[in-house]
């Protein structure tokens, strides 16, 4: 009977039978994934510092924890009353169903170390307590608890250790419940565990916290799964070499098969980036737990040991003189030792880490666990890493993965030895977190092969001060518009409203608007409703918006004589006095009034509209009084701007070309500035009403300084006003306005761009290294690649994401799960269908 080493738990402490006290902390994974080299190197440095902050024995583990679908959905719906938002409740319910069908997991990191207690008295007391525990167990006497003072003393020692850990890792003491969870997790790996995960805090923590008398489980450890034969569970190999699996039976329904691998060899020479053999463990395709169990030695001790090894080598040189192979191996060892010695001498802070790396592959059956172990071995073999599961190692390795346990000689024999600097390149404690903590489920975070839900919190009053808006870059057909519609669909389901511009001839957003109750379309070419600001807004807002629109349209400066006339006639009092209630009225009034310059203004406006017959002219959507004014209460508004022309940047940059601009282009430019302004007014009207403005081909708005100014104002204060924008373009660097405007939107998404030059520019804007060949290749060829029949369904929506917390990763957009919304998002207008199908 193997005795469990832990006898007592309090806080993050565990007392063991041999009289030591172990402390455990949970560590936070560092940003890595698709981050820039600079960020990655920071993570490597933090790992180096982690090892350097330790002394003596340690255990570092990375455990796969099941994510409760309920917890995920809880984060989506926390701010909503399901009764009031039935659509959102439906979306959340479907998400819950999906997550139950495809459960997701997270990786949790723990650091455990035995504490070195200061005084001889404390150490003696621990030894006596440990001995007494043994005796009282043997005599079946109830165990006595330790005194609160003693616990506090030990906690203080643990806190000293924690303070020395690198701050980036945000080590925090685990509660007792989490210690119990790790113990249960160890015996239920690979099976659908009912143990609540510590991710479900605080409920799980509380649920597992019992005041006294707790069992960590009394599993039957069966190395080689021999009981499978006696249980008649099927024929098993009789050769122990074929049964390197540990069967753990917790109760008749809880049988976990695990196969432990130990690292036996690493490639000779690892590059600082790209050798993340633990950080990228998930790439093997299996959910594998890892543990690093070993000791950290100080420089002085290392130099002593190196010296001894040198003496041994010299002695061996004599013994091996007859064998050339053995001798050359020795030469290499000697060179390595010199190099190592030099490294240790060069840096006083450097420490040696001598540790066994253990992987636990698991499954509900012998075959699954065994196959996983073989596959993981194969996966690493091609990269030069050798993993072994020596005969008789399974229970020993399994035990070594748990804090407080003794380490068997066989496990110690597999220790790998290197300075902290070398271990750091394995970057074990990294995370691929992406997206926000709460909000709509935009898709899957596919940074690691273990997909996880990715949430987007556009409106949340989160602690972050930055904007909740989203910027997208991607080529036509790359998935931009489906992503935008997905977001708009979710906002509708959440009870919010949206406004979108649609420049397509086919009217893709017009089709989408059909799926949203209470939506309307403003067709600029053949208008049925009017956008006249004097008619759709109240007097104050209307006059302000009309002034800014006319200044852009007529290309006058606010301070010019004509600008001053405009200001005068658009004063609310003036408008009321002269009963001007529309732009059409204004033109008529100007052509007849006595103010100097009024006639000139009327003439300038006459270019766009015939005052006598407002049904004629480019600007009908604004000047025709016969049209019904747009109802701003619509929950979805599409500005269908087909056929509207815009000047190019060259035309605007050159004064001569500017003066010769066609009427259409001048109107187009002013119209988009007006749309931006209108969206701003609508979205900011009611703080409690979520409102979204979506604009593809964002250059249409940034082509005018007025548009840039409006959007900058918008994005600066969006979150505070329950508003957000989603902008998109194929060339964000050129189209997303000035640097200020670009910098204001932290959440960025890059979808497929096959053109190398544009892909480079997109990466530059994204914040990544545009010269990173692998990343460039990803954007050009590996995001939703086009197959023979278009983009296969399972590859749609792939993108790179930079989230609001400046983390980089890969994701896959998931369309809304409600059938109506899903269909509306997928609708591809006929023209595009021909091109890409």
């Amino acid at each position, binding site marked *: 009977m193997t005795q469990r080493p832990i006898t*007592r738990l309090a806080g993050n402490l565990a007392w063991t039978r041999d009289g030591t006290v172990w402390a455990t902390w949970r560590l936070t994974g560092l940003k890595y994934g698709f981050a820039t080299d600079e960020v990655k190197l920071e993570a490597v440095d933090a790992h180096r510092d982690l090892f350097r902050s330790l002394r003596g024995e340690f255990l570092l583990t990375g455990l796969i924890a099941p994510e409760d679908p309920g917890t995920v959905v809880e984060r989506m719906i926390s701010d909503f009353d399901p009764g009031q938002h039935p659509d959102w409740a439906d979306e959340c319910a479907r998400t819950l169903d999906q997550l139950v*069908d495809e459960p997701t997991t997270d990786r949790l990191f723990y650091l455990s170390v035995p504490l070195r207690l200061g005084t001889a008295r404390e150490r003696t007391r621990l030894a006596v307590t440990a001995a007494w525990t043994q005796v009282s167990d043997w005599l079946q006497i109830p165990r006595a608890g330790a005194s609160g003072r003693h616990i506090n003393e030990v906690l203080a020692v643990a806190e000293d250790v924690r303070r020395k850990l690198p701050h980036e890792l945000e080590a925090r003491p685990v509660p007792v419940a989490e210690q119990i969870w790790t113990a249960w997790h160890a015996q239920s790996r690979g099976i659908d565990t009912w143990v609540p995960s510590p991710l479900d805090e605080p409920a799980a923590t509380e*649920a597992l916290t019992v005041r006294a*008398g707790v069992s*960590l489980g009394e599993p039957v450890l069966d190395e080689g799964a021999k009981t499978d034969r006696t249980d008649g569970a099927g024929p098993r190999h009789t050769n122990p070499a074929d049964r390197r699996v540990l069967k753990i039976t917790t109760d008749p329904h809880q049988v976990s098969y695990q196969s432990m691998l130990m690292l036996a060899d690493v490639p000779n020479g690892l590059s600082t980036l790209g050798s993340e053999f633990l950080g990228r463990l998930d790439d093997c395709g299996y959910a594998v737990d890892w543990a690093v169990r070993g000791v950290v030695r100080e420089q002085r001790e290392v130099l002593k040991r190196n010296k001894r090894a040198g003496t041994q080598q010299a002695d061996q040189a004599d013994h091996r003189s007859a064998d050339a192979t053995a001798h050359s191996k020795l030469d290499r060892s000697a060179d390595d030792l010199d190099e190592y010695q030099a490294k240790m001498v060069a840096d006083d802070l450097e420490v040696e880490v001598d540790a066994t790396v253990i992987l636990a592959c698991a499954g509900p059956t012998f075959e699954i666990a065994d196959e996983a172990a073989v596959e993981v071995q194969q996966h690493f073999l091609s990269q030069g890493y050798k993993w072994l599961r020596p005969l008789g190692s399974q229970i020993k390795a399994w035990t070594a993965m748990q804090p407080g346990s003794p380490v068997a000689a066989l496990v110690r024999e597999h220790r790998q030895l*290197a300075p902290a600097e070398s271990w750091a390149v394995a970057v074990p404690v990294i995370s691929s977190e992406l997206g926000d903590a709460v909000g709509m489920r935009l898709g899957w975070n596919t940074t690691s092969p273990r997909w996880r839900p990715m949430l987007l919190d556009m409106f949340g009053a989160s602690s972050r001060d930055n904007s909740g808006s989203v910027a997208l870059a991607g080529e036509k057909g790359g998935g931009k518009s489906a992503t935008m519609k997905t977001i708009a669909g979710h906002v509708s389901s959440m009870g919010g409203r949206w406004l979108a511009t649609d420049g397509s001839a086919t009217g893709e957003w017009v089709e989408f608007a059909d799926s949203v109750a209470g939506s309307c379309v403003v067709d600029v070419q053949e208008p049925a409703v009017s956008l006249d600001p004097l008619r759709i807004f109240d007097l104050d807002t209307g006059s302000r918006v009309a002034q800014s629109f006319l200044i852009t349209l007529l290309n006058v400066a606010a301070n010019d004589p004509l600008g001053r006339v405009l200001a005068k006639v658009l004063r609310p009092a003036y408008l009321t006095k002269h009963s001007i209630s529309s732009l059409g009225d204004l033109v008529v009034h100007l052509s007849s009034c006595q103010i100097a310059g009024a006639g000139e203004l009327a003439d300038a406006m006459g270019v766009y509209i015939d005052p006598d017959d407002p049904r004629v002219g480019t600007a009908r959507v604004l000047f025709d009084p016969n049209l019904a004014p747009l109802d701003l209460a619509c929950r979805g508004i599409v500005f269908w701007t087909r056929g509207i022309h815009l000047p190019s940047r060259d035309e605007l940059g050159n004064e001569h070309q500017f003066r010769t601009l066609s009427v259409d282009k001048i109107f187009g430019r002013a119209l988009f500035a007006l749309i931006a302004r209108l969206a701003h007014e609508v979205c900011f009207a009611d703080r409690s009403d979520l409102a979204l403005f979506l604009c593809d081909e964002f250059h249409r708005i940034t082509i005018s300084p007025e548009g840039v100014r409006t959007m900058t104002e918008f994005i600066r204060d969006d979150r505070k006003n329950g508003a957000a924008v989603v902008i998109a373009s194929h060339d964000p660097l050129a189209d997303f306005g000035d640097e200020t405007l670009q910098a204001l939107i932290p959440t960025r998404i890059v979808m497929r761009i096959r053109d190398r030059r544009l892909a480079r520019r997109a990466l530059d804007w994204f914040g990544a290294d545009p010269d990173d060949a692998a990343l460039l290749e990803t954007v050009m060829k590996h995001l939703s690649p086009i197959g023979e029949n278009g983009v296969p369904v399972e590859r749609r929506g792939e993108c790179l994401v930079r989230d609001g917390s400046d983390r980089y990763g890969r994701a896959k957009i998931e369309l809304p799960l409600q059938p109506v919304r899903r269909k509306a998002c997928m609708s591809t207008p006929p023209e595009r269908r021909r091109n890409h199908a």
Partner: protein
Amino acid sequence: MQIVRFYTRARKVPSLIGKMPDGTRIPGGPYTTIQVIAAIGSLALLHQTRELWGFAGGITNLVLEVVIAAGIGFVIGHFETGIRNPVVIALGAASGVARPRHGTSSGRPVRPVPTRRLAGRVIVQMPGHPSGATSQPGNPSAAAPGRADTRRARPRSARAPATHHEPPPPVDATPPRPAARPRTGVEELLASISADQGDRP
């Protein structure tokens, strides 16, 4: 980008024996320590037990002893353990090798390790409750609600009573059933779905 290395091989030099203590070379050397131990050990054993197996004259027996011992040493030399101590590896493997009645593999007896039970009670103490051992075990009020009810379709293993050869189920650490608690969004969501279940296809 920097290149870093592991130095396991630099420090763990397998100790080979190529020369006698007096400095004379051993022919065919160097040999691993375990090879030498095995060869000398088997030679000694054979020599001591030659009464039992010896069938020829003293010289022939001696030759046989040496040949067999050398053979053993030769075979052991072929077990590659790299930089790892072969004794430790062998002892570790021994714990996984079975007794003969379970058959043999590669001509060696197989001795299965008996199944073991990892047992032991643990006392939990919260810093604020120094006399944890005396407090009420399984206090129901400590049982905060789990999220069990949010996992709608997830199968939950029935906690069957223990059979005679199985360990008793760990009662105390079993997550308690949810108790009354303010309803969460998801709970409300589920309630609202079950209310209008018929509406959804």
